[in-house]
């Protein structure tokens, strides 16, 4: 009996703790999300496809669902109740404002950019709305997968140049970090202390994430400031790594000296043994 009470108490306590987490609220909404059930039966593709596209996208995985952007009551079973404005239903939200409820910093950066005036659908222009894929560096630049070229397709377009420039900056930092991590891992494996360099690498990775955020201001000069900060950290890491490489080379030299001495002794020993054998005969 006491055991049972304790279990029940633990369950209540556990549930209470979970309820405090904002993620949990969203996940809970998903379990009683009737939006997809009803919309799947509709014939208008514009209404039918979004729930299908959303399934498994970044927001779905993060526990953000229909009602978080569109409002309304996902628990309701009839259309009127579900789309009740009293329940916060707002229909089609504005791309500029709705994303900013969570992605504050990115929206702030974007507001400062030239694109803020031009992109009617704001964030949605590049990232889409339903079925959003995890963003990657490939979206930036002028390569095949990049999005910039859908407007800035001409080589003499300043936007084309800027896109290339920004992508190059991001790549520079990313490759710098990768190379630095490789060097440090190699040196660490050989038994050289690299705690400071590892710490610096996490800092450099922070700069890379910051740089990716900075991209949304679409200002190559501002991006370069962040990237150069990161590159400075990477340079320090490489310096430490190269000291490690030098230490490894020192060890190898020591080994060769030792091997040379051993060889000398072994050769002398071979002659000695031969000598000994000859005297025995």
């Amino acid at each position, binding site marked *: 009996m006491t055991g049972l009470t304790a279990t029940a108490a633990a369950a209540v306590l556990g549930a209470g703790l979970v309820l405090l987490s904002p993620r949990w609220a969203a996940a809970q909404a998903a379990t009683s999300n009737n939006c997809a059930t009803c919309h799947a039966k509709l014939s208008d593709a514009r209404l039918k496809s979004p729930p299908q596209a959303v399934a498994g996208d970044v927001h779905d995985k993060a526990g953000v669902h229909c009602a978080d952007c569109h409002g309304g009551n996902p628990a309701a079973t009839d259309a009127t109740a579900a789309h009740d404005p009293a329940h916060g239903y707002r229909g089609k939200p504005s791309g500029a404002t709705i994303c900013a409820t969570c992605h504050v910093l990115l929206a702030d950066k974007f507001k400062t950019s030239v694109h803020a005036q031009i992109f009617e659908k704001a964030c949605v222009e590049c990232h889409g709305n339903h079925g959003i894929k995890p963003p990657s560096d490939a979206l930036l630049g002028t390569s095949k997968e990049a999005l910039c070229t859908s407007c800035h397709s001409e080589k003499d377009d300043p936007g084309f140049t800027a896109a290339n420039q920004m992508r190059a900056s991001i790549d520079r930092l990313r490759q710098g970090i990768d190379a630095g991590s490789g060097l440090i891992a190699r040196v660490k494996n050989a038994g050289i202390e690299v705690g400071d360099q590892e710490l610096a690498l996490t800092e450099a990775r*922070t700069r890379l994430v910051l740089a990716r955020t900075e991209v949304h201001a679409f200002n190559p000069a501002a991006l370069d400031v962040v990237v150069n900060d990161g590159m400075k950290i990477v340079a320090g890491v490489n310096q430490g790594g190269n000291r490690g490489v030098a230490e490894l080379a020192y060890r190898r030299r020591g080994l060769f000296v030792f091997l040379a*001495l051993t060889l000398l002794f072994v050769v002398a020993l071979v002659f000695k043994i031969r000598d000994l054998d000859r005297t025995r005969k």
Partner: protein
Amino acid sequence: MNRRRFLDRILGAGFTSTVIAIVYPVWRYLIPPPSGEPATQSVVAAQASQVKANSGLLFKFGSKPGLLIRTPEGELQAFNAVCTHLQCTVQYKADTSQIWCACHNGMYDLHGSVVSGPPPRPLERLTVNQRGQDIVVSRT
């Protein structure tokens, strides 16, 4: 018989030098290293006087950054300063008395729980103890 004596000389020299080459590293190994003893799960993060109320400072915890804060009420807290979203280093934001990740504006409260923004999990908490002036942080 000069050849034999020459050979014995070489043999002796070779033996002596290889013995030295073995004894030398062992001798150096026996000398206590300057850093004293292995850095384990606890470090002295700061001196008590270094952290004013409503401020925070970063320290090295193993190969990761740690964040030591003193709340406006004067309480000490320490966290693994790695944001649970994309592993950026978080910092203390004095104006709102929160822990803040600059990368995507993730906000944590003074207990490391997520207040807003993208972080999926609370910050990993570390244990803080004060030993005289030393603030000692260890893994929980």
